């Protein structure tokens, strides 16, 4: 039987294998190892990064390549850009995507624009690894992590030319996209959904890449195309099951690459199904969901047999209360309802 791994262990394996393969790959971030400077007291690797995804790497690669940083995202991501243009391939950990608020400048104005501004003189092989998404905790017993620790916000990265952005949906794509991101010569934001960290799936042991820029069709269907991002892909699959019970054959496309966008796969699918629902945990305005919808409204309008629907979070910050948080995130029911609405006539 094929080997199963946790999502966060798949990420860990990707990092370990790439760091073995390529001595220029380094890792930087807050508590990516932990207990820093206390090795002599037996404290090493005390933390191991968010979700433990970087656990064990410092023992293997040492503190010169697994670098605990002070809390200064603007500074250390700026430094990662500088390192990337001078021969390293840094992976910088941004603990939660909301913290892009304190480091958009090095990601955008330098990381993403540098190659263009310099007329192609340099590449910026940098990975920003970050956590996205709501917590999904038990509704009645408190809440989640609230507005500053639960955002998705990848539309900001997709908006920025020069950046790439990927969002895996299972352990297999986690490992493959993270390796692809590290090998890529451009800056890539790798978005890891916190609720996927504890999910399991088949993961080949040997290194492999999942290509950046390609969506993946997980389930064929001829009535409606459901497009999912990260954890929303699972929501789409569940919605597809339910739709099947109503006699509707839904095709499920796992977007994976938010930038560049795989327009061909999307257009081709909607040309066949004539109906589209894009499901996105991010807020709606200027979202990836609406971006996909607009591409279809341009390129496949003649094949559309109903309104293009997006199912997203509301235009609101993420609430703390578990009850509200549960209502915030798109559900299979909402996707089913949207799918039926596109098929309404």
């Amino acid at each position, binding site marked *: 039987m094929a080997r199963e791994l946790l999502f966060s262990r798949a990420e860990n394996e990707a990092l370990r294998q790439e760091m073995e393969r390529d001595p220029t790959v380094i890792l930087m971030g*807050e*508590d990516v190892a*932990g*207990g*820093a*400077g*206390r090795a002599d*007291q037996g*404290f090493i690797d*005390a*933390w191991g990064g968010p979700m433990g995804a970087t656990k064990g790497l410092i023992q293997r690669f040492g503190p010169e390549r697994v670098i*605990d*940083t*002070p*809390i*200064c995202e*603007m*500074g250390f991501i700026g430094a990662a850009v500088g390192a990337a243009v001078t021969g390293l391939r840094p992976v910088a950990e941004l603990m939660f995507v*909301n*913290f892009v*608020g*304190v480091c958009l400048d090095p990601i955008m104005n330098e990381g993403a624009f540098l190659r263009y501004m310099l007329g192609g003189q340099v590449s910026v092989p940098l990975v920003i690894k970050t956590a996205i998404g709501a*917590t999904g*905790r*038990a*509704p*009645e*017993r*408190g*809440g*989640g*992590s*609230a*507005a*500053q*620790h639960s955002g998705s916000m990848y539309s900001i990265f997709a908006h920025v030319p020069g950046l790439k952005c990927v969002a895996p949906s299972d352990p297999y794509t986690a490992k493959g996209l993270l390796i692809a991101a590290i090998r890529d010569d451009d800056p890539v934001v790798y978005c890891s959904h916190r609720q996927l960290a504890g999910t399991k799936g088949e993961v080949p042991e040997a290194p492999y890449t999942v290509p950046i820029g390609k969506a993946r069709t997980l389930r064929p269907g001829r009535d409606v195309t459901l497009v999912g991002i990260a954890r929303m892909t699972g929501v789409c699959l569940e919605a597809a099951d339910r739709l099947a019970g109503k006699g509707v054959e839904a095709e499920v496309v796992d977007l994976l690459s938010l930038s560049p966008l795989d327009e061909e796969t999307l257009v081709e699918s909607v040309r066949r199904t004539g109906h589209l629902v894009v499901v996105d945990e991010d807020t709606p305005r200027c979202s990836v969901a609406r971006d996909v919808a607009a591409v279809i409204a341009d390129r496949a309008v003649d094949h559309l047999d109903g309104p293009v629907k997006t199912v997203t979070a*509301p*235009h*609101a*910050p993420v*609430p*703390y*209360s*578990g*009850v*509200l948080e549960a*209502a*915030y995130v798109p559900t299979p029911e909402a996707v089913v309802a949207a799918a039926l609405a596109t098929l309404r006539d």
Partner: protein
Amino acid sequence: MPDAAPEATAGPDLLGDAELLRRLYRQMVLIRRFEERVHALRQSGALQGSAHLYVGQESVAVGVCARLRWNDYVASTHRGHGHAIAKGVDVARMMAELFGRETGTNHGKGGSMHIADAAVGMLGATGVVGAGVPMALGAALSARTRGTDQVAVAFFGDGAMGQGLVYECLNMSRIWKLPLVFVCENNGYAESTPVEYALGTKHLAGRAEAFGVPAATVDGQDVFAVYGEMGRAVARARGGGGPSFLECQTYRYYGHFIGDDPRRYRTAEEEAYYRARDCIERFERAVVGRGALAEAELRAIDEEVGRTIEAAVRFAEESRPPAPSALTTDVYAR
């Protein structure tokens, strides 16, 4: 390391103010019992949600806020329960907030990391390390522009001293001579990262001085020391003398968040050292030992606090969660 814990530093003037002593004690105990109850609720699974406990640091919040008026401003951190309680936020509404209930301080929308109560000048905790500091600075600027004599306090940790934002604020506070007190709670760690690694030193006050902001370092586990130094800082601020920086050396007893095991990065000896200096015990020894308050008075306060906390939990548990419609209210004022 196990040298004898020093006595808390209450002078005769303070020891003579029984009213103040009772207030300081009650608030420290209230914070501790609140936090311990939250910890227990989390361990039992009755409560979920991100939370960072303040236990061990109570004397900082209490010593600082005891110098403030109700309408002075406080901006807080992810580890904000203590600041909120010391500033006068109702613990029942705080507990309800942790339970995500409609009756919570933030009507369930903010949770532990954002507890606020504008009515008592608690501008809110913030989950982005360092982000509360400019908020307090803005409140100080606002007070000055509006011609009030309100003072603002920015609480932040040693870890926040890695963020450039804090230095931007030191600079602005100084050139504009704002009524602002920077309170750096140096508990030695940012998550699992020791301050001497992250900042290359354990002593942070010198950085503020380099920006021209008068700075002092105090034993943060001694509520009298904090109260004393904060008195000077507030007097300076209210008198138009500008900002001050208070480095409070302290310690958190629990992990970074509930669930984190601090033994992965801290020695038992170090913990023992700080626990031997526990702010509540030292207070009690100083105050009872020198006859300023009777032990029975303290026990009576303990009991009252215990009842208050239990009532808070009941209030929270019995409160309703927010209505579904709350999901999209309060995004805009209009």
